[in-house]
């Protein structure tokens, strides 16, 4: 685990840099807020609806779900690829079966137009 400790320290320092700068900048800058300035940027006229009240396309959700499927598959491929020279022909056939199942699902998704954005 000692290999990972520097990474943790790195992450903490990387977090400290922006936090410290934002706080220092806060002391240096002048603040003159007014209601119009604090409105969400749109067109200058008082907004009637706000982003978090409105709806958005369900396709973003669909893409996220498909991503989970494909990313988990990628994770399965990582150990296989590293060990491939020891697994040999057995490993290749095994992975071809796995990929075939996946590709069938992929073409089903394609046919159902889940990958089209219109």
């Amino acid at each position: 685990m000692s290999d990972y400790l520097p990474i943790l320290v790195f992450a903490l320092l990387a977090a400290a840099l922006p936090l410290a700068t934002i706080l220092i900048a806060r002391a240096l800058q002048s603040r003159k807020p007014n209601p119009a300035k604090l409105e969400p940027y749109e067109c200058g006229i008082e907004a009637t609806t706000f982003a978090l009240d409105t709806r958005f396309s369900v396709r973003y959700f669909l893409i996220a779900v498909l991503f989970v499927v494909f990313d988990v598959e990628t994770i399965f491929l990582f150990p296989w690829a590293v060990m491939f020279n020891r697994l040999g022909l057995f490993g290749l056939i095994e992975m071809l079966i796995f990929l075939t199942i996946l590709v069938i699902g992929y073409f089903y998704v394609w046919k159902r137009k889940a990958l089209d954005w219109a």
Partner: protein
Amino acid sequence: MKVLTPTVLTYLKVVILVAVVPAIIGFVVVLAERRLMGFMQARLGPNRVGPKGLLQGVADLVKLVTKEDITPSRAERAVYFLAPVLAVIPALTALAVIPFGPAIRIGKVKTTLWVTDVNIGLLFLLAITSIGVYGIILGGWASNNKYSLLGGLRSAAQLVSYEVPMGLALVSVLLMTRSLSMVEIVHRQGRLHLWFIFPGLLAFFIYFVSGVAETNRNPFDLPEAESELVSGFNTEYSGVKFAFFFLGEYAAMIVISCVAVTVFLGGWLPPFPHVAALKFLRILPPLGWFLIKAGLFLFGYIWFRSTFPRYRFDQLMALGWKWLIPISLANIVIVACAILATPGRSNGMFVLSYIFGGLFVVMFLLAKLRQKLARRERLAAIPASAVE
């Protein structure tokens, strides 16, 4: 008593990286980008602050720090505050496992030019760079602005879409590296006398296209698309917080470049070190070679930006899901078959180099031919009376 123990040196390197990389981004990369884009667009770019504009970064820093930092009244305050921090952390932390050079000794002190060499280096890099999407989507969401929300959503969809081909492209290289450790990947390229860009040419292209999309850069910069989303997820951000979103983006660019150099271009190795005629290339230290290669990638990013027009969102999704994913899956099968079909430890890689090299030449010639035919057609379509 010795002060510079290995542990102390490791943390010293951490501090140096966290301090130096943002400075390089602010003072060198941003200026280089603006000046290069200036030249590519037949103008000068910033050249007023200091000699040749070299102090532009200082001026930008002063301006960004003293600028009023607005939090919109309807924003989710805590998330709005933390989003730029969250965008910076993963992009910088990824640098911890990048080997910038081999083990060296300066005077009596022996050290390595990487912070830590974890045995799952590449997997760690994929994991940590994908955390970067949180900063952007949370920033877009917490602003409570319609443009920001759309920019954040687009960004999330884009980043997860291109994550898959990027991972798959790296899998096909892993078949050849047999290790996930970044240092071991470079050593193996040294032992084979072969950079993985040659047998992994296809993987390299897929990786780089996905890398450009992952960092939200042109021609895939839809999350910011200033012409339609008024800068997208960072519309509401100003001052330092805005600056840190940019720092995160540039740090991610550097990470993508460094990973490409390590995995495909032999890391710190000079080109063709086993060829006697090219021995003189060793006068440059390994770190120098690494920086030159990484610099080439960053130049590529800037070149892309001033060359390609922006994609439409449906085209972007189609490119990722309908082209890059099937191609990278096929690439994995091709590489695996080639390695298995050829006897010996590394013959498959040379066979693959010839296959992909030949394919590349053929495709290049076909593209040239098509260009020529299209030009002839265009010329033929002009009525004779118009040509005077």
